[in-house]
């Protein structure tokens, strides 16, 4: 793959030379594509406008503008070719890396999902009770663009409409259809028929329409879709004092800057919000000794798993390559094709196939090979490690076998001959000449194989889900967990999802892998081909 350095070749297009006007067909295609992109962008911007997400709106607008400039401008040729890929790269690779880092410094997760305003609104609206003796409104369930709403006729005759997000507002009396004392329809909204009401009972019963912008004023709710009552929260938020008060027990909860309301005796309200927590996620393992120890074990096992997987499958592959490399052997080809089958088998299925073989009660190993034994292949800490390694070697050795075979054959025969003439025996030729040469040529593959196995999520998760669980650790950490499966479990499978901690762990993995790769690639000069 050696090529003449591209810089030496006179390839750079000289601008201006080939600026014929593009053909009609090209122009039409170009404008059509651009129109589609712009239409999608405008749609997104409209949606963002209604969500009042100004930051993202600005970014989308700028990006769209940039795309249009690039493609409508006759110059900027490289940008025309790079932009499509870069858009995806920027969003789903670069942005998510930055976002991961941001999340790692927050308490984002279950109970801390949104902003403080949202948390306050949620706390207030989750704890409403009917205000005794409050007047009944006559209501009609209606549906409009913003979703389900209530059309309410107040006891004093005013007609109001609102949804869960929009507080009740008076409507123009001219637009209302009245049925006696009760408004039944209003322009711009569809009145729900009895049938729909019955079908969407639950949705209607949980609908709370705020009376005003201040949620402390209360909500209008209905249970029978004809009469509405005022509900007020048992929690009252005092904006000036920044406290949440439980009016039933009288407890005052304060915001101490940790993304939640806490009472003086340490009680915490369930719904909190997202705040920056500095290095707390990174310090968590140090503060929780049990988790810290578990994390050290997981890290050691992750290294051991990656090194052993690469090392053992390399040596098995090399051994096989040497064994089958004898030209006098008949049916070498059959052995080779059959032994690389695991490499051809879709890798996402392999672990599941072995899952059946390893099954404690009914699996082939226990039932047939070990005479109905109950060996816990996947559920005992050390056996579990052994089993996942075995499967990973099964998956990995054919690749190493092929690589070693190619590398061995590319070592010039003269070296062997010269060494033999100098009096070296077979082992010396291999140990002092062939093996070092082999290592040099396969080193980059071994490094990338290490990096891959360091994050070999599928094999671990599909076989053991990281289990068996370590005793005495509150978090769900298992004996065969790799760091990456721990990230996944912390973020998506824990009782309370903790995105912040998971992202912090991901960053730790990144630092480890980057350091290992940087150190090893520095010696392999992989980057020297760049020109």
């Amino acid at each position, binding site marked *: *793959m050696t*090529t003449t350095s591209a810089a030496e070749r*006179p*390839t*750079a*297009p000289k601008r201006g030379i*080939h600026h014929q006007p*593009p053909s009609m067909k*090209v122009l039409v295609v170009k404008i059509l594509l651009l129109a589609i992109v712009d239409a999608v962008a405008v749609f*997104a911007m409209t949606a963002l406008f209604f969500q009042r997400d100004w930051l993202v709106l600005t970014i989308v607008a700028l990006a769209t503008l940039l795309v249009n400039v690039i493609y409508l401008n006759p110059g900027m*040729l*490289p940008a025309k*070719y790079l932009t499509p*890929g*870069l858009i*995806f*790269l920027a969003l*789903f690779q670069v942005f*998510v*890396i930055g*976002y*991961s880092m941001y*999340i790692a410094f927050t308490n984002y997760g279950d109970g801390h999902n949104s902003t403080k305003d949202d948390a306050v609104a949620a706390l207030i609206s989750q704890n409403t009770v009917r205000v005794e003796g409050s007047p009944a409104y006559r209501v009609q369930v209606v549906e409009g663009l913003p979703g389900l709403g209530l059309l309410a006729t107040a006891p004093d005759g005013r007609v109001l409409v609102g949804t869960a997000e929009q507080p009740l507002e008076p409507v123009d009396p001219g637009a209302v259809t009245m049925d006696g004392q009760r408004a039944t329809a209003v322009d711009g909204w569809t009145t729900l028929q009895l049938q729909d009401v019955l079908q969407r009972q639950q949705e209607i019963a949980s609908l709370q329409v705020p009376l005003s912008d201040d949620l402390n004023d209360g909500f209008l709710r209905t249970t029978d879709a004809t009469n509405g009552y005022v509900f007020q929260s048992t929690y009252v938020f005092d904006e000036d004092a920044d406290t949440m008060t439980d009016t039933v027990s009288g407890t005052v909860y304060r915001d101490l800057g940790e993304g939640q309301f806490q009472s003086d005796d340490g009680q915490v309200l369930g719904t909190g919000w997202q705040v920056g927590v500095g290095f707390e996620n990174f310090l968590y393992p140090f503060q929780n000794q049990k988790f810290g120890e578990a994390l050290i074990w997981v890290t050691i096992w992750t290294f051991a798993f990656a090194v052993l997987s690469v090392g053992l499958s390399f040596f098995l592959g090399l051994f*096989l390559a040497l064994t089958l490399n004898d*030209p006098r*052997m008949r049916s070498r080809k059959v*052995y080779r*094709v059959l*032994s690389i*089958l*695991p*490499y051809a*088998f*879709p890798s*996402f*299925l*392999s672990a*599941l196939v072995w*899952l*059946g073989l390893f*099954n404690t009660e*009914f699996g082939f190993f226990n039932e047939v090979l070990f005479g109905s034994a109950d060996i816990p292949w996947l559920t005992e800490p050390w056996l579990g490690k052994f089993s996942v390694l075995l499967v990973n070697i*099964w998956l990995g050795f054919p690749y190493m076998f*092929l*690589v070693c075979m*190619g590398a061995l*054959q590319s070592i010039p025969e003269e070296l062997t001959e010269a060494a033999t003439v100098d009096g070296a025996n077979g082992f010396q030729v291999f140990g002092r000449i062939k093996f070092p040469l082999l290592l040099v040529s*396969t080193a980059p*593959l071994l490094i990338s194989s290490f990096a891959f196995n360091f*994050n070999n999520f*599928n094999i671990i998760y599909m076989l053991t889900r990281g289990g068996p669980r370590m005793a005495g650790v509150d978090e769900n950490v298992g004996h065969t967990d790799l760091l*990456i499966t721990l*990230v*996944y479990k912390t973020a998506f499978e824990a009782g309370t999802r903790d995105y912040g901690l*998971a992202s912090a762990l*991901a960053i730790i993995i990144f630092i480890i*892998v*980057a350091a290992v790769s940087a150190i090893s690639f520095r010696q392999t000069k992989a*980057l020297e081909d*760049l020109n």
Partner: protein
Amino acid sequence: MSIDIDPIATDEPEQAPRKVVQPKMSFRKWARELGWRHLIGIAVVIFATFPIIYVLSASLNPTGTLTGSNELFRNLSFENYVDLFSDPRRPYAAWFMNTMIVGIATSVGTVFLGALAAYAFSRMRFTGRRVGLLSLILVQMFPQLLAVVAIYLLMRGISDIFPFIGLDSLIGLIMVYLGGALGVNTYLMYGFFNTIPASIDEAAKIDGAGHARIFFTIILRLVAPILAVVGLLSFIGTTSEFVISSTLLTSPDKLTLAVGLFRYVSEETNSNYPIFAAGAVIAAIPVMALFLYLQKYIVGGLTAGAVK
């Protein structure tokens, strides 16, 4: 990507002279020099093929549990294959289709985006080119896998605006995969693009072809082999991907094979295994057939990469 080293195909020419040199060996000499190699070969072949034979046998066994599958090939029937397609709670056909859609769309997208970028890097000189090439490699150091939390949250945010490209949508998943389109693949293509003589571009330019015409009608045809390699690698990588697809996809008929079969077999390994086995065999046959058909090139590519 030269494919001159091919350990499997090199067998044939060697066999003829061997018979002349070594017409007959005594059994002891044979056992000492070659017999043990055969023993090792047989042992490794058993290790390598047994799980595959087992899953094939389980898929043909009509008893319907793992226990019955332990006696290899005792009963043969296609019952499991029929059952596989008959339960709407386990829409295997939909999973298969989804996997194909995601795999093909991603690999086509990856090839296209990567080829565009590789063309720019290979044929144009602009400020930031070298830095761009370097940063493509550096960005890949952080695999998407590690950012799975951020990807999930990003897609949840996109769902609020565009539900059909957010969570639980194949388009959303494909877009996430395309985030990795530039990177190692571009680098691979860049190397290959550089081997196409620039004089071809020059000649076309003199004949009045514009850059787009040169790219689409001339260069893309000349680099077809690398496009095929990158497309295949991307297809294999995408169809085996589990972490991101399992976090983004939720409803049963939107799953890919990897996620669907995993959830199915792990919820009740014993009773679901035979039907899983049938699904695995159907999923594996095209891949293995393709692999064996292309093995000469794949093996050649691998070893060329190793001994570059």
